[in-house]
């Protein structure tokens, strides 16, 4: 019961300003992610820091922005800043499981894709 006292009883003092800030930030981040989708992030990074970056750079950039937006929603709108540890753990554990599933699936299927590609290439080459 302890940590969540702020969000349990009614009390007048809870300010609404954080909501306005988060809302604005979310809109800005949305505009950012849409704009980035028109840009070849890989090429820009190549000019800034050198090296070659493929389309993957756009995907990573998009994901970073999405995670930022999600964090704002979870922390402020969903009051995770006041929630008890158990509820934070529930969310954290679920997200960790999600990451595990994505990791396993992408590992296997990137391998499958490249494997198929290599085999297909070998067949075409007349082996």
């Amino acid at each position, binding site marked *: 019961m302890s940590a969540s006292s702020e969000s349990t009883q009614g009390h007048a003092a809870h300010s609404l300003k954080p909501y306005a800030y988060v809302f604005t930030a979310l809109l800005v981040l949305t505009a950012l992610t849409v704009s980035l989708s028109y840009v070849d992030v890989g090429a820009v990074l190549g000019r800034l820091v050198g090296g070659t970056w493929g389309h993957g750079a756009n995907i990573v950039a998009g994901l970073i922005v999405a995670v930022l937006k999600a964090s704002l929603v979870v922390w402020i709108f969903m009051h995770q800043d006041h929630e008890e540890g*158990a509820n934070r753990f529930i969310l954290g*554990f*679920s997200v960790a*499981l999600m990451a*595990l*599933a994505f990791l*396993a*699936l992408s*590992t*296997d*299927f990137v*391998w*499958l894709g490249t494997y198929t590609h290599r085999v297909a290439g070998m067949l075409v080459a007349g082996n």
Partner: protein
Amino acid sequence: MSEAKIERVADFYHPEPTDFFRKYVWSYDHKVIAKQYLWTSFIFLILGGTLAMLLRWQIAYPNAPVPVLGSLLHGMFFFGADGSITPGGYLELATMHGLIMVFFVIIPLIVSAFGNFLIPLHIGARDVAFPLLNAVSYWLYLPAGLLIFASFFVDKGAAAAGWTAYPPLSDAAGASDPVLGMNMVLFALFLAGFSSILGGLNFLVTIVKLRAPGMTWSRLPLTTWAQFITAVFQVLATPMLAAVGAMLLFDRIAGTSFFIPTGLTINSELVANAGGGFPLLWQHIFWFYAHPAVYILILPSMGFASDILSAFSRKPVFGYRAMVISLASIMGLGFVVWGHHMFLSGMNPVMGMAFMISTVFIALPSGVKVFNWLGTLWGGSIRLQPPMLYALSFVSMFIVGGLSGIFMAASPVDIYIHDTYYIIAHFHYVVFGATLFSVFAATTYWFPKMFGREMNRKLSYLHWGLTFLFFNLAFFPMHFLGEAGHMRRLATSTGYEFLNPLAPWNEFITLSAFALGMSQLLFMYNFIYSVFAGKPAETNPWEASTLEWTIPNPVPVYNFKELPVVTRGPHEYSSPDTLPGDWLPQNAPANPSASAGH
């Protein structure tokens, strides 16, 4: 209710309803809901067992007409015109036997029935956290069960692609595809899964939030700890099944191709779907759920066994903390071993190696538990009453099933024994030998508390003896069959010359299985008779220490007149405090000289 306002959630309970409908049909009382699950699951157990008997007939006497049922139902369901079982019918039998046993018998029994009855009593609460949600869970499960049952009656029958429903067999509509039946089954699983998720959620909040004063985490009965860990699997793994089942349903109904590769042909005809999908995808997502599901099938029964072994050895469980850590390890590891079902699927071999390592690791906590059960028995004052006999069988058969599991964990071995009778032997030892025996243990043990009467002991001993004998006669030889290469889901083994020498074994197993099935009539009779006309039971016939034994039979709707204050662990047996008796209840006063227990 009194004039004073109710201050705490723990004090609240729904008053006892007076009309039949609210008392027995739409009830918020966890004890009533538990019994609803119990009866429904036992009925499905009869159905699932009958399907198995039919399977065994076909295996032992391929294409011979089934006596009685075959002549009655020839041409219908899985029977051919002459009353024998058709090859497609055999696959339907195998599929539905598996689905019904897993989703409509074992999980509802050990989790929903016994979990519902015991969890609030074990933690000293008046009900679960969300009683309305609890009722909803049952009323999602029952329609799901009815839908599964109905799927037998539609054109082309029920699902027939194995309980694992691998595409493309489960997916693309070939001529023999049970179009409607499979869709009904998928939808039923969706409902049952949702019921399971809500139930697990309920149990988790109950155990975290509604423990009585003094009921710390280290004083929980191991039954409760096991239910807690199981509930985590239920809440987090089951949604994957719902999602992947929905994708399969979409492939079948909406023509999508999540699991259908481009260029797939069935009977040399190109499939209508656009393609671009991956059958392997189904396997990954399905087993991501289904492996935790098999832990759902075993963990609660480990909990029952721990508490029952302790009570009938008059000793605390050996290594309580190790038992809890093992449960938690199984939970953590249980999410990262699913690939051991897929060693032959064509997945990335490096992942195969990773899964082999994690699977071998998960044997360790189970091994710890086995040694701790043995340690509990060692030096104990053993009372060989029926619950104890069943619990001992649980341990011995879990050892057999667990050992065979270690062989499969090694992918080089699994390459050979995958999809053979070795696998069937393994999971029947753990799900029947271990879990179902622990269900018998739990039923005979908690029957007095649930129904206020005793089950007939002599009948229980007889049932135990016959079941133990015939179970081992039926399933142990399957290890040898598997090693010899006998495949599973095989309608007629006579088509393979190398299997012909094994035919006598198949017949032997079938006859043992029939005897096993017949023996269950003893339990059925004992259970039903005792519910209505059994000898009235005393409050604590087993002299056990957990909280449910401190309240009268039948348990009143509010469970505890005053919420107990817990001062001891769950296995207060044979400690100096208990003298001159050998046990104390968990809420006995902390000062030992103030009350000696009996």
